[in-house]
């Protein structure tokens, strides 16, 4: 019930904010803010409680689970569960929710009730995505997420918002419907071969199917996740959506909506289709590396600040893709850390850009310069997050990207080398960003007010989070560890397939290619054992 409570709490707060908006502007703001902070405190309490449990690091255990019949005629259940990854991501959701609310405190002036309702609606849907274990439920939340985002961009966005929403919509809608088709394909294949028609995640794991079918279904899922992530080639909606979105929309978009794609790959794509993803992994990793470099180069050539940050997001998500398809302990944990760190750092950058735009009414890089001298607090924060973005050691992003590279190195050396080039390019664009906006001389004669207490508060919280993640990531890694191990056990032969496919490329170092932990898992988990393990997984919740 905890899990349903998390979502109902958010939706309820949103409704309350909407209903009370007629009483005054303060009502929706404070209601959502307090609701989110209370939920963060509650989740943090849970986290500490779980961390004390002896089985916290044992793989294959849900920390909390909810499993009720919903539409029995179709085998649809209200099945939600939380493991370490979900917990971290829901926390990130709430945290960025607070940031979004705080960042819109002054920026959003009209239709406040509906705005906050939409905001909470997105957060609830995203939390639902992170918790759903029934594929139907997953799709349900996945679709639910789009509508409020459409409204936030379409109603509160900038000049060109109609075009942006159209593009955003066509991309996401078409791709998610492809995923629906794939979900149904899986449902029927599983039903025909076993006689049990179910959308349940643990039930569908290990569904026997031919490799062609598996590949097709996998692609259906992959495209949906890839559009959200976004993977290069289907990324073009993102810069436009970001440019037109209000600050809160950008924060949610970059911090959470992109992560949903990554989460889907980690939770569903590889475990459900281990063989197909393994044979696809070289392409996917290649796409990841291409994205890292291509988007970083494009970011460098942008003059619109928001567009620039949007492209850096694409670049960072390339690392995530690389890490996921490398599929070993290090890379996966790295990907999770990137997701958290990027959520915070890019969220902060969008907030800063939003603040600049709110003050100077422009986002054009060429019109800025010397802002540090007039706004030292903002300049300091901007500098810090730009450095985080380039992967400065000691900040969260570095930990994640380093882990991903370490993990990917065990799988494919050339790609890893290429990916690390991304570090260099990102250094260039991040420094360029700082140089053009904050440093240099204030040639335009800007006179803008510096951060007030509220804005400084937001930044302080985000700085604290990113620094904590960079200096002491261990709690996060510990929390994710068991979940990652459990997920990897679903695809025990992943690297074996990988080796068969790409054996020639990796012949130089066979011992290394297998890596440490994952070969153990690969050997330990024979295919026959998977269903048994799933069952224990499903039943072993609270």
């Amino acid at each position, binding site marked *: 019930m905890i899990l349903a409570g998390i979502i109902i709490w958010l939706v309820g707060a949103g409704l309350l904010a909407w209903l009370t908006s007629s009483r005054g502007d303060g009502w929706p703001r404070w209601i959502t803010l307090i609701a989110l902070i209370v939920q963060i405190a509650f989740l943090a309490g849970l986290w500490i409680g779980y961390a004390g449990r002896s089985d916290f690091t044992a793989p294959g255990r849900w920390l909390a689970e909810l499993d009720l019949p919903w539409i029995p005629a179709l085998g649809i259940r209200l099945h939600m569960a939380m493991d370490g990854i979900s917990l971290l991501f829901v926390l990130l959701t709430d945290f960025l929710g607070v940031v979004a609310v705080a960042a819109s405190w002054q920026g959003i002036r009209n239709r406040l009730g509906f705005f906050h309702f939409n905001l909470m609606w997105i957060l609830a849907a995203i939390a639902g995505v992170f918790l759903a274990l029934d594929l139907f439920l997953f799709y349900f939340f996945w679709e639910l997420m789009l*509508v409020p985002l459409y409204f936030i961009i379409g109603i509160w966005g900038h000049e060109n918002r109609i075009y942006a929403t159209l593009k955003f919509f066509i991309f996401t809608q078409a791709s998610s*419907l492809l995923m629906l088709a794939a979900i149904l394909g899986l449902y029927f294949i599983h039903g025909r071969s076993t006689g049990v028609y179910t959308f349940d995640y643990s039930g569908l794991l290990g569904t026997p199917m031919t490799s062609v079918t598996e590949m097709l279904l996998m692609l259906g899922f992959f495209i949906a996740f890839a559009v959200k992530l976004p993977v290069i080639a289907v990324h073009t909606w993102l810069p436009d959506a970001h440019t037109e979105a209000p600050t809160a929309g950008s924060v949610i978009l970059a911090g959470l909506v992109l992560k949903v794609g990554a989460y889907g790959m980690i939770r569903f794509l590889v475990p459900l289709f281990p063989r197909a993803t393994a044979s696809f992994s070289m392409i996917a990793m290649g796409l990841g590396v291409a994205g890292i470099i291509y988007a970083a180069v494009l970011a460098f050539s942008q003059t619109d600040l928001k567009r620039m940050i949007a492209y850096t997001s694409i670049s960072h998500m390339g690392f995530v893709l690389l890490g996921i398809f490398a599929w070993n302990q290090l890379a996966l944990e790295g990907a999770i850390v990137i997701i958290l760190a990027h959520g915070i750092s890019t969220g902060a950058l969008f907030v800063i850009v939003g603040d600049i735009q709110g003050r100077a009414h422009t986002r054009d890089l060429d019109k800025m310069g010397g802002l540090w001298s007039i706004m030292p607090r903002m300049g300091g924060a901007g500098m810090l997050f730009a450095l985080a973005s380039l992967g400065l050691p000691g900040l969260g992003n570095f930990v994640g990207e380093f882990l991903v590279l370490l993990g990917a190195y065990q799988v494919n050396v050339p790609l890893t080398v290429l990916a690390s080039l991304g570090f260099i390019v990102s250094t260039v664009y991040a420094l360029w960003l700082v140089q053009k906006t904050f440093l240099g001389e204030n040639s335009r004669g800007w006179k803008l007010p510096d951060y007030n207490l509220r804005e400084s508060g937001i930044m302080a919280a985000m700085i604290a989070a990113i620094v904590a993640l960079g200096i002491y990531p261990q709690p996060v890694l510990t929390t994710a560890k068991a979940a990652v191990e459990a997920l990897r056990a679903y695809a025990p032969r992943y690297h074996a397939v990988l080796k068969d496919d790409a054996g020639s490329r990796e012949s130089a170092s066979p011992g290394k290619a297998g890596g440490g932990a994952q070969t153990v898992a690969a050997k330990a988990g024979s295919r026959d054992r998977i269903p048994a393990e799933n069952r224990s997984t499903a039943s072993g919740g609270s």
Partner: protein
Amino acid sequence: MSGADFVGILPLAILAAAAVLVILVLSVYRSHLLTCILTLLGLVAAAASLPVAASVGPRGVTILLISDGYALFYTGIILAATFSVTVLSYVFLRSRPGRREELYLLLLLAALGAAVLVFSSHFASLFLGLELLSSSLFVLIAYPRGILNVEAGIKYLILASVSTAFLLFGMSLVYAQLGTMEFARIATAGRGAGGAILIAGLGLLAVGLAFKLALVPFHMWAPDIYQGAPAPVTAFVASVSKVGAFGVLLRFFRLAGVQGHGHLFLVFTLIAIASMFGGNLLALLQGNVRRLLAYSSISHLGYLLVAFLASGALAVTAVTFYLLAYTATIVAAFGVAVLVEGNGAAGAIADYRGLFWRRPWIALVMAGALFSLAGIPLTAGFIGKFYLIGAGAGSSLWLLVLALVISSGIGVYYYLRLIVIMYLRPQQTAPEAASTHWSGSLILGALFLAILWLGVYPAPWIDMIQRNALLK
């Protein structure tokens, strides 16, 4: 006809009796409210007789009608939709001059026609039911006798008559070939028989029904009729007449085995794809809310064809559920039109701009209906569309599923755009408020809750459909 036979068609008998009662009362005492109440009572009585009729089990009543769970469930949908339309008509007519009472009589007769359609097991009853429905609709569409209404009425009359002629000619070809007009015997006699004439007959029959359902390429009438008819009648055209026509289409072709005839299957596939894309793409271009909904309904009937072409019990459940969801949704949408549209052009976007600010609750209902049409989670349309795609995927109709998926992706866009328009700041000169009455708000509220219920917890409805409304 035995007593049990009569019980089996009790809902139809009650509807007919209500119509006769209304005209008798009209001849001595004209009262708008009284007529409306009598009509509503008739509909409620007919609905109350559904379980009674179900108790005599599936049985053929003469060769013309068959009373089974399927027929009764669809009749239930028809009665509920007609009930809503009747209340909306009351709200609509209250503020308008002229004679109003005949409208209720015609609504009863049209509902009876639709119910006969879903009961029919013979060409004669199919034809008569369809005509009863259409003939009442000609008048209903032109009812206020304004220029737009009359235009719409004439257009509908011409196209409906042409389609009826197609239907009749198709029937006669099938009859000439097989020597029977009963569905069940056509099914058995038609199994082995191939023959160009039979295929042509079935094809013409399908064309006739496709006209009524406004499937592409027989859809030309829909936008004009949706725009020209008075709003409650539009709701009726969009819901009841579609339910009736689709009900009989499904029953007949399921028996006749559309899968058995490759050509027919191909034709239906093409019609489905054309309707889905045609409806959605043309809807993108519309600046009028009613025309937009008309094109959207074309595409929705296209979606339904996907499950219609699929095989198995899942397909029938999917169609029935979707029709249920669609009916609740579209009646709600046009119910909003009744309460919102002023005396200007029907469906003008100006009536809807800023609706959220002027009349938030009604706008909420409209938003719910549009979400449901778009297939957004939490609404009936989401579960319905999921069901349809499931039925298509279950029969491996991947091309159709893909078309459904892509075209409904297009569709979502214009529904949401309309919602954004409702949320824009109202214009300086707000349109004059249209008719309001508490009963209209009540019906809209009920429909809104129904949309949510079907979207959030559809299990009881699906159970009911699976227990009752399956064709063998």
